[in-house]
């Protein structure tokens, strides 16, 4: 983090659209690594920056140390005896205030004004006070006041804020307003297949549990042609979809996603979309590779398994492993998504799972992860699998794999999680874990899900579980019998690389 900021000290965020670049010494020869590292420090801001950027010029702390004339930080002088609290602690306290108290606090000083204008504070206030019944305008703060009074507030036009230095707030603005850097898109090392047979998919990807990008397998979906905004608005008129912690009608969501510029945009992610609007469910069908769906034996008691995903550029989900040890496919209908996947045994940098696996703490946002951690796995022997998944393409996410997804443009996708014979035993093991009550998700009856599922499978497919277990044991003993050299050679294609 410090490295990034050091280089950013030249930046003054007074104008949007400013290109931030480190000065380079003129050189005739430049190695590619140098160039690579150099460009690490450059960030471009998006064309349309939020109003807060222009009227609240916050600078990184490094500017205070290296700045030519000013030695005081408006942040500290305007906070009285609260100045000793770090930015995140102060924001923790402010997050406990209601809107009125927060607005009063903003009138205490310029520094108080900057802190209480921190938009994520207002976002929680809007979501907790107005649920999904808000019309987003400009910022969450404006939206709150507009929702309350029916009139947008008149924002200060000539309020002068200068010499305000804060890494925390600066980072937050930067992550909300910077463009996705082109070098984060350069690496594309996923295996791509077009028109492979189901057997080949199973033996080359599903059985060995490896990701693959499948091209051309959803060309026949009506959704590909039909799902325009107009069509969706018409078909889903009057229906509310799950968006973060609230429910919103589509037109309100689009109004929000069209104008928002924030670090973690809310995205629409609804598991019941096809029950709510049956037409949506019949505009696509499951690609041939994923037709086996063993959770279907649970009928109405099955855990959530399919979602519609919509979100603006910059929305997505930070590193996680999919629930209940299921595998998944994700089909992009419009837009494009950047994926980063790590195999189950490699915890991505910046992620700290709890020992029992119940909690996956990735404290940083997606943008912050790219800024601060993406580069750190550049030299890892086990580099992640990366790709951009475009409209019409489907990615297979094998069970247990860590993944991060970010929309590069406004995107609509369908994703389904499933259990097939290849991961049935994994899923059963997962559901049987002693802490199933916290681990299992997508259902109301977490503890009994294992027994219900196992019984239902036994009833519908007698002997299947034992048969799979036998096969797994056979495979395991075969692997054990392999000599050291055989296994080393075998591993060329597998998880780890044998190096001399």
């Amino acid at each position: 983090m410090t490295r990034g900021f050091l280089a950013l000290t030249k930046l003054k965020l007074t104008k949007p659209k400013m290109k931030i670049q480190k000065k380079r010494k003129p050189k005739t020869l430049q190695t590619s690594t140098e160039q690579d590292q150099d460009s690490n420090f450059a960030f471009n801001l998006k064309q349309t920056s939020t109003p807060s950027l222009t009227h609240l010029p916050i600078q990184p702390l490094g500017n205070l140390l290296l700045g030519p004339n000013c030695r005081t930080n408006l942040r500290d002088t305007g906070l009285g005896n609260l100045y000793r609290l770090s930015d995140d602690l102060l924001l923790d306290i402010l997050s406990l205030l209601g809107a009125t108290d927060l607005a009063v606090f903003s009138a205490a000083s310029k520094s108080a004004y900057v802190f209480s204008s921190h938009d994520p504070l207002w976002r929680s206030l809007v979501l907790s006070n107005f649920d999904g019944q808000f019309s987003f305008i400009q910022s969450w703060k404006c939206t709150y006041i507009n929702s309350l009074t029916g009139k947008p507030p008149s924002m200060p036009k000539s309020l002068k804020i200068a010499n305000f230095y804060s890494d925390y707030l600066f980072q937050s603005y930067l992550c909300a307003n910077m463009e996705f850097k082109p070098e984060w898109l350069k690496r594309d090392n996923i295996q791509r297949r077009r028109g492979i047979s189901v057997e080949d998919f199973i033996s080359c990807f599903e059985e060995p549990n490896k990701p693959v990008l499948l091209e051309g397998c959803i060309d026949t979906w009506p959704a590909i042609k039909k799902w325009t905004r107009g069509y969706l608005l018409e078909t889903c008129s009057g229906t509310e979809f799950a968006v973060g912690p609230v429910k919103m009608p589509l037109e309100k969501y689009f109004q929000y996603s069209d104008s928002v510029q924030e670090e973690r945009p809310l995205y629409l992610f609804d598991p019941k979309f096809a029950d709510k609007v049956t037409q949506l469910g019949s505009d696509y069908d499951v690609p041939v590779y994923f037709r086996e769906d063993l959770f279907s034996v649970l009928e109405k008691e099955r855990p959530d398994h399919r979602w519609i995903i919509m979100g603006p550029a910059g929305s997505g989900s930070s590193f996680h492993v999919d629930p209940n040890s299921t595998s998944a496919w994700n089909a992009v209908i419009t837009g494009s998504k950047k994926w980063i996947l790590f195999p189950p045994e490699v915890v991505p940098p910046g992620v700290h799972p709890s020992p029992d696996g119940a909690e996956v703490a990735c404290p940083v946002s997606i943008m912050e992860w790219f800024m601060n951690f993406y580069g750190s796995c550049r030299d890892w022997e086990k580099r992640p699998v990366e790709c951009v998944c475009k409209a019409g393409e489907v990615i297979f996410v094998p069970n247990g794999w860590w993944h991060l997804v970010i929309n590069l443009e406004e995107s609509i996708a369908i994703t389904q999680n499933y259990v097939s014979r290849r991961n049935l035993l994994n899923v059963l093991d997962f559901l049987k874990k002693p802490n199933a009550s916290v681990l299992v998700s997508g259902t109301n009856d977490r503890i009994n899900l294992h027994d219900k599922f196992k019984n239902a499978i036994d009833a519908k497919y007698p002997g299947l579980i034992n048969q799979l277990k036998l096969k797994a044991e056979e495979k395991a003993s075969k692997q054990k019998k392999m000599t050291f050299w055989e296994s080393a050679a075998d591993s060329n294609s597998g998880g780890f690389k044998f190096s001399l």
Partner: protein
Amino acid sequence: MITLISSDKRKFHVLEEVANQSLTIRDVIEDRRGRRRADRIILVTNINSKIPEKVIVYWLRHFLMPEEIAHASMSHKKAEKLKKWEAKFFDTDIDTLNDLILAADSLDIPSLFDGACEKVSDILKNRSAEEVGEISKIENEFTHEEEEEEIPSENAWVWRNEFA
């Protein structure tokens, strides 16, 4: 028994089970387990003056029933008593509360952190901007125009709301 040394060089002897309420200290002890006795000394920097005593008092009061608190299985009477005790404990000036927040943050004592933050936010609630300034000694450096025109016009809804 472990020894905590504050940044003003005072020593505090605390039972390990008590100090374990700080997740930071718990991790340090865990890391050093099985090593020399000198390793039972832990420097707690950025904690000084009356704060170590306050933190230890807080620990002792909570020590007897950490499980109960965690599982909310406390009897109603006990819970009421603890609530009253906490109200008194946090009834102090904003400077001390800030110190407690910093200590609870660096030592990772979640309940102390939440309690102190809540108290500070309570102090800031239902005030006028002048009162907020007075309590937290914030100097108002708005220009006359900003103070008379800009901020009030943005916050007009507050006053309307207040007096509605």
